[in-house]
């Protein structure tokens, strides 16, 4: 039997229970009715073999060996030599068997899982979700780029060339502000300034507002010096 134990190395076993199961199968024992004496002998032999092979034997194995020796002696000794608080030896063996059977079950299930792992790993999948890019909703198309770029570059050219008339059309600004004030009833000068793309446009907008005041389309008021100027639609008192 010792030759069979040549393959015994600690790395091959997950723990003492694993080694026990191995020995039970190797010796063709019935797991539900283990001859404790035989299994104890085999187990101790295996542990000794490990020591011979200079493998550091974990304390779990030593503990199991001493437990088996204890169990064996319990089985051999006459019944009335036990202390009251100790379990009946048959019951002790039953619990030990349960433990082994349970472990044996998980050991087999591990093999089932191993197989499933192998099978499942052949199905490849993509772990990242693909998000629908914006362009599929036509929100970003190359013309957006063209708009940004040529708006910038042409604006640049205008300020450099300074052809005043071309920059801001006075009539257009008046018309735009007029329709704005009619629609919104009231607006702030600072908002108008923010909407301007150049100082020239600010200047033209100011002239346009003055034009609206002159034509009584709008009134302007300022509650304090340097305060916000409010431009309001003129109330239609008498048509």
């Amino acid at each position, binding site marked *: 039997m010792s030759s069979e134990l040549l393959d015994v190395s600690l790395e091959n076993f997950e*723990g003492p229970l694993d080694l026990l199961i191995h020995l039970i199968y190797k010796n063709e024992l019935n797991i539900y009715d283990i001859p404790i004496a035989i299994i104890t002998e085999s187990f101790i032999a295996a542990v000794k073999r490990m020591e011979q092979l200079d493998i550091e034997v974990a304390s779990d194995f030593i503990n*199991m060996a001493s437990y088996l020796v204890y169990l064996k002696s319990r089985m051999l000794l006459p019944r009335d030599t036990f202390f009251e608080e100790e379990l009946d030896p048959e019951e002790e063996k039953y619990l030990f068997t349960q*433990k082994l059977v349970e472990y044996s*079950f*998980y050991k087999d*299930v591990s093999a089932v899982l191993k197989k499933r792992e192998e099978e499942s*790993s052949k199905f490849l999948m993509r772990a990242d979700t693909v998000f629908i890019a914006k362009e599929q909703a036509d929100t970003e198309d190359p013309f957006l780029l063209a708009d940004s770029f040529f708006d910038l570059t042409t604006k640049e050219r205008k300020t450099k060339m300074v052809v005043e008339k071309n920059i801001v059309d006075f009539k257009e600004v008046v018309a735009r502000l007029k329709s704005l004030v009619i629609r919104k009833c009231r607006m702030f000068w600072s908002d108008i300034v923010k909407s301007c793309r150049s100082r020239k446009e600010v200047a033209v907008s100011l002239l346009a507002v003055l034009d609206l005041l002159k034509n009584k389309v709008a009134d302007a008021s300022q509650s304090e010096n340097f305060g916000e100027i409010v431009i309001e639609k003129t109330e239609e008192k008498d048509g």
Partner: protein
Amino acid sequence: MDKTREKKIFYASLFLSGTPLEKKFFRAFFEPVNLENRLLEYAEEFNKLDTGLRIRMVSGGFQLVTESSLVEELRPHFGEKSDALGRASLETAAIIAYKQPVTRLEIDEIRGVNSSGTVKYLLDRNLVKVAGRKDVPGKPLLYVTTKHFLEYFGMNDLSEMPTFREWQELKQGGG
């Protein structure tokens, strides 16, 4: 929504999603009556197209995967092949699957060895997770399996694992 459109959205969703999609995901925008049957029908229809892609049922949902017969060619390019689990990890995973929620000490007792390393490894691999603490002295953490556990082992739910009774019958019958 007509069935053709529904089917297309089903396929498209599975393509986009990086995780299996459950029936309830589709219930939100498909007619819920008899939905599961329709989805199964769509899946079957898709698999018949034999495109190298398959819809599989896993962890209670549907997932688009590549055919297993193509794995050899595809793996070198797309397999971020995670290491297969070692025996200790498989044992620990099995115990957690059957005994959940379970503490580390309970696992240790069944295995007869300390399992703190393997439990940590399974946590890292997202195969198990912590689900609260047990109401006993010391308030130890309780472990359960994750959805990814099912996906990883290609199961729809845990009931696909052999029962202890089945196993016993097999053992005793075989022995």
